[in-house]
Structures are given as structure tokens and as C-alpha cells.
């Protein structure tokens, strides 16, 4: 069965979505990712969508829900690499992804994850 790969890097998970996902594939990713967080006890998840040329309401909701689920599983999720045309379209569509941490690219996303983990440790 077709799947989006989830890579583990230390205490982080990295997901790079490089295909135009059909809905079932997006649901499968949500399932796989939450299980991977629980199994690996990852503290952070980077979801790289720089290759996605379209994010519609279904995919957008899937991403927002996944970030919320990660949080409940004690991991921070950061969405990185959204193309400007996708951002413009998503907001016009009515989806501004409130509550989803975002960064311009993987490098900045990683910095954001590290910073939020330090914040957790300080509490």
C-alpha cells in the first residue's frame, strides 16, 4: 500500500510530503504519524509541504488535526515550506490554520522545535 515515509532524526520525526495526496493517503499519514510519535516518543515533528502545489480544505484540516494530535501526544509539530500561492489560496478558502506552528523552511522549523522544547524543559 502507498504510504508517505516518516523519518526519525534523534528525538524528531520528519515527514516530507512529495506527492499529490488523495484523501485516503492523507488519513493514512495521520494514522501513521500519531503511531510513530507514540512509539518513538518523539518530542517534535516537522511536516514539510514545500513540494505541495495544492492544499485544499481536506488536506488543510488533516494537517491542522495532526498538529493538534501531536500536541496531545506531548510532541510539538511545525509545518514548514508552504508555497506562497498555497498560503494565499488557503486563507482565501477560509483556512488560516490557527494553532499550527509554521516556519519558512526545514532549518527554521528545526530551530523553532528546539526552542519550544527548551521552553518545555524550563517549566
Amino acid at each position, binding site marked *: 500500500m502507498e504510504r508517505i515515509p516518516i523519518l526519525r532524526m534523534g528525538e524528531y520525526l520528519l515527514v516530507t510530503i512529495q506527492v*499529490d495526496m488523495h484523501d485516503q493517503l492523507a488519513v493514512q499519514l495521520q494514522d501513521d504519524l500519531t503511531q510513530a510519535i507514540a512509539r518513538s516518543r518523539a518530542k517534535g515533528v516537522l511536516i514539510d509541504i514545500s513540494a505541495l502545489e495544492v492544499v*485544499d480544505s481536506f488536506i488543510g484540516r488533516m494537517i491542522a488535526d495532526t498538529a493538534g494530535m501531536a500536541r496531545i501526544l506531548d510532541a510539538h509539530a511545525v509545518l514548514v515550506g508552504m508555497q506562497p500561492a498555497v498560503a494565499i489560496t488557503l486563507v482565501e*478558502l477560509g483556512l488560516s490554520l490557527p494553532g499550527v506552528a509554521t516556519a519558512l523552511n526545514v532549518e527554521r522549523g528545526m530551530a523553532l522545535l528546539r526552542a519550544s522544547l527548551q521552553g518545555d524543559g524550563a517549566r
Partner: protein
Amino acid sequence: MNATQGELPLQSQHDVVLARQAVRRMTQQLAFSLVDQTKMVTAASELARNAVIHGGGGALAWELLNNGARHGLRLTFLDHGPGIANLDLALTDGWSSGTGLGMGLTGARRLVNEFDIESKVGVGTRVTVTRWK
């Protein structure tokens, strides 16, 4: 010479992906800006999904338009599903038949220049959208 109209099936979620890719090629052929391409493809994705999920499948008819002054793309999504009893309600942000977010129809309307919907309970739904370059 490229075709100026055609039809695509909308029976499965894979057809939704194929419809998105076909609409992307059409908007590129019409030299839409990247943002306009993305808006039209996203609107098509919402409406194609509606036809598959809520309409039980249907078809997408497409037409490249040229009225002399400008070029555009018109997409008609037709299904033979249960239809929508209350169109005004269905066109309200956040209204949902229960399985979605309630953003598809209203969101798609905001992403195009012209939007028309006809629906008859027990017969089906036809949504026509146009975006001009």
C-alpha cells in the same frame, strides 16, 4: 491544436487527484499566474471531492473560453446524488452535511470569478465555476 473542451470522470478519490492535475495543466495552458492557477485547482479539488463524496460520483466538464478580449476556464461539476435541500444554508460558511469542514462549497466560491449552483433533491447537483485570466 489543443482541445477546448472535454469531460473527466469523478468516481473515486483518485479521480479527484487526476482532476486537480488536469485543471492545473489547463490553467498553465491559459498562462494563468501561479496564484490564479492554485486558486482554480483548489476550487476544482473541493468541488470534485463534493461530487465524489456527497454526490456519489459524477463528471467534470471543462471548457477553455475565449471571448475575444480575455481567456478563461469554465468547469462544470455534475453529480446525480441526493441533491441539496437548502442551498442558502449550504452556501453558509461552516455549514456541513456532517462529514466535512463546511468550507468546500463556500471556499470554492471565493476562489473563482463566477459561481453558479443548481440542485434538485433526488436528482443531483450541478456547480459551474469560471475563472478569467
